[in-house]
């Protein structure tokens, strides 16, 4: 079963079209293994990205360098999934 230890979901709020453009560029970098839960479309919509642990440093550096604002929406995805599994198991019992 695939695990997501250390994966974070970042919520990014772009403030202009240039930042949206940068996020679109980011989405094309396949080696980062990013999973865009919501896509960079417009400043009015937040962009949520699941970032694998191995790409976190690079993505944060990219956002920091371009001064793109983000918050951590999910600190560790696996923690949340473990909790979800525990709740399902508990409910069955």
């Amino acid at each position, binding site marked *: *079963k*695939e695990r997501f230890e250390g994966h974070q979901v970042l919520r990014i709020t772009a403030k202009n079209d240039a930042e949206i453009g940068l996020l679109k560029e980011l989405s094309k970098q396949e080696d980062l293994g990013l999973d865009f839960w919501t*896509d960079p479309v417009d400043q009015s*919509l937040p962009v949520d990205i699941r970032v694998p642990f191995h790409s976190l440093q690079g993505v944060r550096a990219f956002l920091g360098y371009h001064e793109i604002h983000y918050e951590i*929406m999910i600190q560790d995805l696996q923690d*949340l999934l473990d909790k979800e599994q525990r709740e399902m198991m508990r409910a069955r019992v």
Partner: protein
Amino acid sequence: LQPRSTDDYDYENYHTLSEINSFMDMLVQENPKLVSKLVIGQSYEGRALNVLKFSTGGTKRPGIWIDTGIHAREWITPASGTWFAKKIVTEYGHDPALTAILDKFDIFLELVTNPDGYEYTHSSNRMWRKTRRINSGSSCIGVDPNRNWGTGYGGAGSSSNPCSETYRGPGAYSEPEVKAIVDFTKSHGNLKAFLTIHSYSQMMLYPYGDTHKPCVDEAELDELALKASTALESLYGTKYTYGSTFNTIYQASGVTTDWAYDEGIKYSYTFELRDDGHYGFVLPADQIIPTAQETWLALMVIMEHTKNNPY
């Protein structure tokens, strides 16, 4: 420990595919005069594509289609759909609005539109979104079933790369999960509303996604979306945005809603259910019932409007 009836079913938790299938069988068994189960096809991996039919009789009645679970990881959608199913059998005969709808229309509810993907999210990868098709010439698996429909198929807003989450597939309707709905809709021939339910971003979207051009009925669809989202918001304050897919979220080609509309089904909407900005696709189970309750209010507005505005 299996629930013995749909009253025992735990609507406040997520369930496996087999548990949802058992739920459907129980619901049919308990309500034989109102509910039946149709098998409209088989998934890529051979799983039954089950649809609950809610009907109070009559022949060739107009129908309302609702599907959940087309994107596998959007667990809140089949969970909400299960709650809708129970709500329909509970409220029929008690809620005058729903009773009037069911006295005129059949409701078709497909709880797990993408069962292979859903099963895979339980067994192997919780973040899986697509179908489980093996793509020849690629190591990447799966097709986005919401880019596989014939209207606008292959346009911008879908990908030709099998490794992309929006891979459109080798051809329109290549996915048996999609083709089964197409065949069912065409053979039925009298569906009047088509509601496909996704998560998350709190939106109600109508055609088109493929083009910025407005659909002929945009004014009515927009007004109805406002009414539906107002009803939804009234329960827990959940804010929805609405509009055409193209203008509200992004260009998306080959999507369900565009196809249904072009098939002549005017009241064609995509829902994007709630998230409060903390969980995305991992919405905690304690939000299942509130999500379903508020969504139901919007569905009722659209279904009533469909009933009151024959075309």
